């Protein structure tokens, strides 16, 4: 029998008091009332740990780096013990054939009951040769594990949307997980990387309630992705007032005005950065004076510039925006109208002349 979370925590030297604190913090993070604290504690005390296989495709490991920095729930070693993280090639001790054997072992032992966490995505071009794991294309490993899992968590923007390797022109044809796995529930936790507390809370929720969290139409947990950065941004009053950073290092930048005009993507980005923040709630990009780049949104690499409000439109071969295209079109129509007016006046004068 696998150990319960509580047993693991106690073994790690966590007091019961700290454990209950953790339960209430988690309840708050999930947006649940105090009544749910005993429920979470009960689940932690009685349920076996969820076995997790954590696969890495084309990615940069920033999701793992973020994950191990989670501050609430507790410290990294506890959270790593909380789930039974059987396979994660970035942080596990095993290597080589020994490591790969763990996947088959987990599948045999927990068939249909483990969670498959995917970091990164599979490339499809060149028969998947751009991402080889244990001598085989990553796609094979992914499909094999996915066939036996209970649910998939798509960590980060790579697994959720494609991210940088899928940005135009996407030479390896990297595709998000949901494009190759169709028969399993997929929870998208986008971000580059996602917020650590968001990652751990999603897992805690699944453990506590034995179900996947409520998702929006794009498959993201509503509890963390239902509002835009802009909606809870502490600089929002400057936006409403009409006070903007016009250029870097200007008076507005020093006063902490809204970064809308210098390309902040907060108004179009769904994430919890402005409430949860990063690194134990220390800060987040806007607080550091740089606009949000929209890293948790679909195709954010192709939705630049990150330093202008209007998106670059590249279909016309040159750098362009809606205003450049629209303005040119309107000017052309205006000019054509003026020419037509001129011809009309001449024609009418001629007609009048003919009639007289």
């Amino acid at each position, binding site marked *: 029998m696998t150990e319960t979370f509580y047993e693991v925590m106690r073994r790690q030297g966590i007091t019961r008091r700290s454990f209950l604190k953790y339960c209430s913090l988690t309840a708050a993070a999930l947006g649940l009332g105090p009544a749910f604290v005993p429920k979470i504690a009960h689940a932690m005390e009685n349920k076996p740990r969820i076995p997790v296989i954590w696969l890495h495709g084309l990615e940069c490991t920033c999701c793992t780096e973020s994950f191990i920095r989670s501050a609430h729930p507790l410290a990294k070693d506890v959270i790593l013990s909380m789930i039974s993280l059987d396979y994660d090639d970035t942080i596990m001790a095993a290597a080589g054939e020994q490591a790969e054997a763990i996947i088959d072992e987990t599948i045999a032992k927990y068939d249909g009951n483990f969670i498959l966490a995917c970091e990164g995505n599979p490339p499809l071009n060149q028969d998947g040769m751009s991402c080889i794991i244990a001598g085989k294309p990553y796609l094979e490993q992914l499909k094999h594990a996915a066939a036996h899992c209970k649910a998939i968590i798509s960590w980060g923007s790579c697994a959720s949307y494609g991210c940088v390797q899928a940005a135009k022109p996407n030479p390896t044809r990297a595709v998000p997980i949901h494009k190759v796995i169709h028969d399993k529930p997929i929870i998208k936790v986008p971000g580059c990387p996602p917020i650590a507390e968001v990652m751990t809370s999603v897992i805690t929720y699944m453990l506590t309630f034995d179900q996947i969290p409520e998702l929006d139409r794009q498959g993201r947990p509503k509890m963390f992705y239902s509002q835009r950065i802009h909606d809870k941004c502490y600089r929002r009053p400057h936006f*409403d007032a009409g*006070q903007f950073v*016009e250029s870097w290092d200007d008076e507005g930048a020093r006063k902490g005005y809204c970064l809308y005009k210098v390309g902040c993507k907060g108004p179009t*980005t769904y994430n919890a950065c402005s409430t949860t923040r990063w690194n134990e709630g220390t800060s987040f990009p806007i607080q550091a004076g740089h606009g949000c780049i929209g890293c948790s949104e679909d195709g954010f690499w192709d939705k630049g510039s990150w330093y202008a409000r209007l998106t670059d439109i590249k279909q016309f071969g040159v750098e362009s925006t809606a*205003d450049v295209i629209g303005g040119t079109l*309107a000017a052309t129509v205006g000019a054509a109208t003026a020419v037509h007016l001129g*011809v009309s006046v001449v024609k009418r004068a001629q007609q009048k002349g003919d009639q007289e």
Partner: protein
Amino acid sequence: MTTMATKPHAEPAVYVYEAPLRLWHWVNALSIVVLIVTGYLIANPLPSVPGEASDNFLMGYIRFAHFAAGYVLAIAFLFRIYWAVMGNHHARQLFAPSLFNRDFWDGVWHEIKWYAFAVKEPRKYTGHNPLAVVVMHFLFLWLLVFMIVTGFALYGEGTGMGTWQYEWFSAWVIPLMGQSQDVHTWHHLIMWAMVCFIIIHVYVAIREDIMSRQSLISTMISGWRMFKDDRRVDDGH
């Protein structure tokens, strides 16, 4: 004036546009102007205002004007659909062009020739001329629908999940177009298409009022179509 205009008008004036339709036209026009100006200022805000944030609400007022005008536009449009059913047959022309009628396309072609100065005079219509119907149906009506749908999708992002604006519009429009930023970009591009429509619409209305064989601008004010000659009308009304 020409001898043509001083001739007695054997063709009687026709009451074409009923009062609700005319009211819609002008309310619609006004709200579109407000929407274009405020919408442009939302994408390209005015220079920063001095003072404390708590003493100012400039961007807030601009956005309020945009949203209020958007509601007026949308409600007026719903009323316009109702009136297409309840009003006279001219009220339906915008919604249901006779696209499968050969004569209609013959009329469109003749009107194009009239604008290319290839024919001496245009045909005579009680309702819209066929080219006007095509342009208004495809380059106004559908753009208007697009702007209302994407507009409410963007508005729903602010009202949030669980509100009808979000559930009816944002929830499906945003994933359909990619992400929120894409919806903004399209909403902005089509705004410029609207600007183009307005330029053409205003120019053509004035030009037709002077050069065609029927009244245009006064008709959208009084509702009565007047004719400048007593020959047969071409749209069979």
